């Protein structure tokens, strides 16, 4: 049973904690609303309340992650079908998302035909735009050339970028290149300098959404689930009242709130991975019993309500009656 999280920076009667962590693994999801830095959460079984809140959203976007097109092992022999199921799920949302973020591992082996298949499938999304950041599977050649040719915002620029949308500032970061022995994900000094500069002209009251492939918090370093220099990046975000960090890589939903920063990881559209540190497990594809797979895959929807400064994160699975879990 997923835990319910209530957290509030603004003393509005909701449970207040300095640090809070939630993990919702396997077949669950999460819905969050960040309201002026206040995070509320609730299970999506509370559909009435959820629907009412989502109806107030000024805009929404969807996060897809870890599609691994080209993977064909027993954990999921048909990742194209499950990506298509995720796309169908997005297209069935009552309100089309303004855009989609894909947080990396689009492909399994960075092959041109894998990128092409993914692009062909993603064309079916009913949305205006898709923003990407690469996963380590998308840059297997060590340079990310194929990824960059297809998905770079501006091929002459660096891979990281920022943009504004309806009062929210978004930052896409790359932490899968130039990795070093014994280390974790890596942003690097050049990207950190850019981030500091990018945020310099953003007012502290502006909601910030940061997205990158590998978690920007230490989920489980023994499995490489963290980013070596994320603390530096997070230090630039401390002054903002509402920061949401969206990651993939670990193929399961996890939520952590620390100060004004909410960390959230998404499920994969391809295959699940074990909970961190599960005895006898390693951070690779997890093969589950037939019929259970789609309950462990999913999409993430984020709704933003201006005025109420609310940002809601909703995870739902690809199962027929996709179970959803929320944090609001």
């Amino acid at each position: 049973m997923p835990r319910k999280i209530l957290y509030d920076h603004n003393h509005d009667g909701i449970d207040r904690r300095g640090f809070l962590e939630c993990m919702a693994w396997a077949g669950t999801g999460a819905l969050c609303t960040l309201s002026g830095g206040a995070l509320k959460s609730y299970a999506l079984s509370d559909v009435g309340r959820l629907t009412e809140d989502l109806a107030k959203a000024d805009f929404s976007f969807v996060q897809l992650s870890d599609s691994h097109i080209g993977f064909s092992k027993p954990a999921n022999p048909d990742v194209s079908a499950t990506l298509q199921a995720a796309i169908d799920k997005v297209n069935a949302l009552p309100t089309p998302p303004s855009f989609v973020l894909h947080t990396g591992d689009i492909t399994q082996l960075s092959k041109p035909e894998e990128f092409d298949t993914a692009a062909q499938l993603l064309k079916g999304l009913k949305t205006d735009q898709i923003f990407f950041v690469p996963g380590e599977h998308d840059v297997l050649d060590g340079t990310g050339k194929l990824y960059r040719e297809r998905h770079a915002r501006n091929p002459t620029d660096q891979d990281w970028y920022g943009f504004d949308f309806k009062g929210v500032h978004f930052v896409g970061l790359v932490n899968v290149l130039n990795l070093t022995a014994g280390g974790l994900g890596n942003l690097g000094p050049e990207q950190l300098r850019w981030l500091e500069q990018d945020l310099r002209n953003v007012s502290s009251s502006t909601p910030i959404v940061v997205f990158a492939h590998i978690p920007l918090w230490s989920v489980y370093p023994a499995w490489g689930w963290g980013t070596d220099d994320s603390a530096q990046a997070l230090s630039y975000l401390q002054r903002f009242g509402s920061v949401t960090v969206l990651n993939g890589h670990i193929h399961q939903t996890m939520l952590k709130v620390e100060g004004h920063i909410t960390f959230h990881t998404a499920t994969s559209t391809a295959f699940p991975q074990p909970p961190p540190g599960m005895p006898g497990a390693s951070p690779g594809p997890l093969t589950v019993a037939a019929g259970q797979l789609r309950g462990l895959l999913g999409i993430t929807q984020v709704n933003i309500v201006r005025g109420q400064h609310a940002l809601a994160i909703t995870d739902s699975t690809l199962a027929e009656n996709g179970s959803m879990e929320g944090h609001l």
Partner: protein
Amino acid sequence: MKFTGKCVILILAVSLTIASAGGTDTRALTSDPASYLVNIKDFTFSPPTLVISVGSKVTWKNQDDEPHRIAETNRAFTSPPLDTGEAFAYEFKTAGNYKYFCTLHPHMTGEIIVESK
């Protein structure tokens, strides 16, 4: 992608004696006394440390459902991405300690200690 002339990519299954998991292993392979095998399984190199003589060849074989890519920390050698069942071999012609890691999963590390004959 950079390859040295000494690198050999082996796609076929390698019928070699498998070095024991964990610890240091200096056993030669039965078919070739100067060939060694490092298994990549469950995101670990096995054995993690291997002591060999100059002129020996080491083959890494990926037995995970995830790709791995091996690189010496100073890039003395770098493999192409190795999908499941694929292997990469390198002949060590110079004595020294060669620390290596997986460029996709850098928490995976190993070492080849090459001793003079």
